[in-house]
């Protein structure tokens, strides 16, 4: 861009337009700005009230420097034809600098005073500091530019400053409106460009009481302030490991000791108490939610327990909505790839991801074998229905199928199955429907299925077991 020789000339010109005192002041101010976050470390503790009182003017005042800074390039461009506007630009730059400094100060007061922490908060602060330094630089190099001595430097610095402004503004918006605010209603095609990187590491607990019952409550009522974006009081409640770690007041969950659990204490205080949670203006927990959390703590607050006394298990019954499975949204790309390479599809049961996926092989039935089925193991916890009718799967497929922990319906009609390995299905506690029509399954092979309480529909049409089991089956299928 700028040749070395030219660069020295440019630097000399810049130096000519500024006094040493000026340069020293800019450098010093930048150094102080960079030191601020190190000196005023955000420790997650609220400090003096007056800090917060002043700090809360930050979201109000912030719009002033934004507007002025956006005005600046317009004035500079218009200034090429009307010199008066260029003079005005100098003034606008100066007051922008002043307001930006005030806003930054208030922002730091707000963060420090309220004791808020979190990666977005930290980033927002740093980008704000960067923005102010950018403005200082603009202020420093502009005289050289107006004198026509360093034509590229000021526009470049100004452009950089504007980028910093956009970045800072976006982070600030994410803090007040939530990080999903901007993209939530984005049209589908655009959304695809934004990688949905899920950092959830609780996938291992899919199906547990924690994931099914406790996590949704915390997610709805607590995570807005105690989550990845905002970590009030150093506490995060969005992941099991973090919620057990607790916050700056120590652990909030004491397994088997509900009364000693800080979280329960806080949510059961009088709503007028200043320590009552969720904080002022947010929806309190219902008494059912509180009793569910209490029961879970009493039972040991385990992340993986699938049954807890006092919490009604989501009964696996056709009349009740099926138990939710985990959210597979983050796996959508792999699901699409799988479809393209194998022809078999993973289809959403409904628009609600927790309703799970259907493994559908109709289009590739003849070539779909055990090896291909095994490749779907990575989606095992999300598959609620497997349509393997007319495929080339064999008894060996039971090993894979037994890993589909949420499987409710299994189609194996017209396959080469002999039923030898049907016993491997016994861990599938949610299985209600099993279609073995047109296979070689005998009645003796069905014996291991007797212990599966929810398996209410077994279809054996056109099998060796047919005549033997017809009676039993019809008795199961009596209408209400």
């Amino acid at each position, binding site marked *: 861009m700028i040749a070395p020789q030219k660069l020295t000339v440019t630097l000399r010109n810049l130096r000519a337009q500024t006094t040493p005192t000026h340069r020293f002041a800019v450098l010093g101010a930048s150094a102080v700005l960079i030191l601020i976050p190190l000196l005023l470390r955000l420790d997650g503790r609220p400090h003096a009230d007056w800090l917060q009182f002043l700090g809360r003017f930050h979201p109000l005042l912030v719009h002033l420097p934004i507007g002025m800074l956006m005005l600046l390039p317009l004035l500079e461009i218009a200034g090429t034809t009307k010199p008066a506007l260029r003079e005005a630009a100098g003034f606008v730059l100066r007051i922008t600098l002043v307001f930006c400094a005030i806003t930054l100060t208030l922002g730091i007061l707000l963060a420090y005073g309220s004791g808020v922490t979190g990666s977005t908060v930290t980033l927002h602060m740093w980008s704000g500091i960067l923005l102010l330094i950018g403005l200082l630089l603009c202020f420093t190099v502009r005289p050289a530019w107006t004198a026509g001595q360093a034509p590229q430097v000021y526009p470049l610095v100004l452009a950089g400053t504007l980028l910093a402004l956009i970045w800072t503004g976006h982070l600030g918006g994410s803090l007040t409106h939530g990080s999903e605010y901007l993209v939530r209603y984005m049209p*589908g095609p655009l959304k695809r460009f934004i990688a949905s990187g899920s950092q959830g590491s609780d996938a291992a607990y899919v199906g547990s009481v924690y994931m099914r019952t406790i996590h949704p409550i915390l997610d709805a009522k607590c995570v807005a302030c105690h989550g990845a974006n905002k970590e009030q009081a150093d506490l995060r409640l969005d992941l099991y490991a973090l919620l057990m770690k607790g916050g700056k007041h120590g652990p909030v969950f004491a397994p088997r000791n509900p009364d000693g659990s800080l979280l329960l204490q806080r949510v059961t205080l009088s709503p007028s108490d200043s320590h009552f949670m969720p904080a002022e203006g947010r929806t309190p927990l219902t008494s059912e939610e509180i009793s569910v959390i209490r029961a879970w703590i009493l039972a040991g607050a385990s992340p993986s327990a699938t049954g807890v006394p006092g919490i009604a298990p989501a009964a696996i019954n*056709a*009349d009740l*909505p*099926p138990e939710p499975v985990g959210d597979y949204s983050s796996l959508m790309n792999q699901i699409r790839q799988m*479809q393209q390479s194998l022809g078999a*599809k993973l*289809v*959403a*049961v*409904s*628009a*609600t991801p927790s*309703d799970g996926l259907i493994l*559908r092989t*109709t*289009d590739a039935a003849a070539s779909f074998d055990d090896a291909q089925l095994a490749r779907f193991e990575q989606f095992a916890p999300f598959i609620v229905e497997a349509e393997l*009718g007319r495929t080339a799967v064999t008894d060996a497929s039971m090993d894979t199928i037994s890993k589909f922990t949420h499987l409710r*319906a299994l*189609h194996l*009609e017209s396959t080469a199955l002999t039923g030898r390995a049907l016993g491997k299905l016994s861990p599938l506690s949610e299985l209600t*429907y099993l*279609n073995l*029509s047109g296979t070689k399954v005998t009645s003796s092979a069905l014996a291991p299925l007797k212990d599966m309480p929810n398996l209410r*529909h077994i*279809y054996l*049409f*056109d099998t060796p077991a047919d005549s033997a089991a017809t009676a039993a089956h019809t008795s199961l*299928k*009596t*209408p*209400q």
Partner: protein
Amino acid sequence: MKQHPLCTDCESPVTALEFPIPVSVKREWAAIETRRRFLGRSGKVLGWAALAGLFGEMGLWRSAQGTDLRTPPAEGRNDLGLPHFAPKAQRAIYLFMSGGPPQMDLFDYKPSLASRFNNDMPDSVRGNQQLTGMTAGQAHFPIAPSHWPFGQHGQTGTWVSDLLPYTARMVDDLTIIKTMNTDAINHEPAIMLINTGNMNAGKPCLGAWLAYGLGSMNDNLPTFIVLQTKTNPKENNQPVSSRLWSSGFLSSEYAGVGLRSGADPVLYLADPAGVDRDVRRQMLDTVEQINRQTLAEVGDPETNARIAQYEMAFRMQSSVPELTDLGQEPQSTWDLYGPEAKQPGTFAYNCLLARRMAERGVRFTQIYKRGWDVHGDVVGTLPVLCQETDRGAYALVTDLRRRGLLDDTLVIWAGEFGRTVYSQGGLTEDNYGRDHHPRCFTAWMAGGGVRPGITYGETDDYSYNIVKDPVHVRDFNATILHCLGIDHSKFTYRFQGLDQKLTSPVAAYVVQGLLA
């Protein structure tokens, strides 16, 4: 003032301004006449037109999304947010009894009518209802009780006419609705209303909505297939037209694909001599290129639909022969469906095909059986109609059940309306006729999502008016959509400035009492 050359009057011609009208209006007229005002107004109008064009384009963009082929329809149409909730039924089979079966001769048992034979129907029952031209001129409305005895069947003890011995065997699997009702009294509007939710043509039918909303389960067969039953010339066959399985304002790839009722369900299915699959493939690829050029030039989404249809036809060349090859069916199939099922085009044959389609992932199959329009000679024709359809319907439900498909397949049996209790034309000891009747008729459903073994709703002693729990055809359609995981009120498509839906803009309700 310069005199107009054609004006014979002297000096000043009379203008509108000289009429005795309010001064303010005159002033406005005068203002309109100025060139400045004309130009100013034109400018504004152009501005508004441009703005409307911009916004209109945004609207079009939204509605065109539905026809975007780049979205693979097989992903459960996640782009539409469908299904709205976990569905009980994955597919549906609709046995459509075109013409209007007489409910009081089949399901709606009215024993008290026997004693009222040939009595005039009380005016209070008919009220101010407008009748069809066929019976409006009748001086008398003589009550014609059903010619056939009824019996109680199944564990539920449901009353069914002796005309339907096979249906009687499966009543415990059925959800019988006695209080269906519709707005139209003539075939075309009534059949359009129940199929498309609107009496006027141009709206998509239930199957097209499902194909659009739920997408395909099998890439090699159409999502929505229509089967016609061969007509019996002795019956009064009302025409059915492709309007009934049209996609309306939806892309035409969602329209029903009709299979012929003859031995050759799709004509020219096999490649002609000398054309092998590769040549056919090359030809289609070239045609597709040309079509893509057209699409790029014209931008009509229907071009996309046409490309998809060519591809579907190519795949159907191999999938349809497999579908219609009944050689592998075991003897138990023929025992169940009866020997008629071996003849292509019979109702039983179509029911068997429908079962095979259900197995192969066809989302929606509609079988049309015409001839139910029994204006006269009910005693002569109704037994034939029942004999033609009874066993097939029973075999289909039973076959689906024993193969484990009834759990997630919804079977529907319905016509467009019912028939009158009074006789059309002369009533004799052993024969009568029945006119169209929209106020109540009977339909049944079975399988995924509906409660088996119930009879829903009550009609009055004349099977004329509804006493309890009416089910309008719109509610019926809303309930069918519900079984398939769709909230009918949210399933809309923007067209002509309206969020169109199957259940039309009039309120419709899912009938909770029918649901499992």
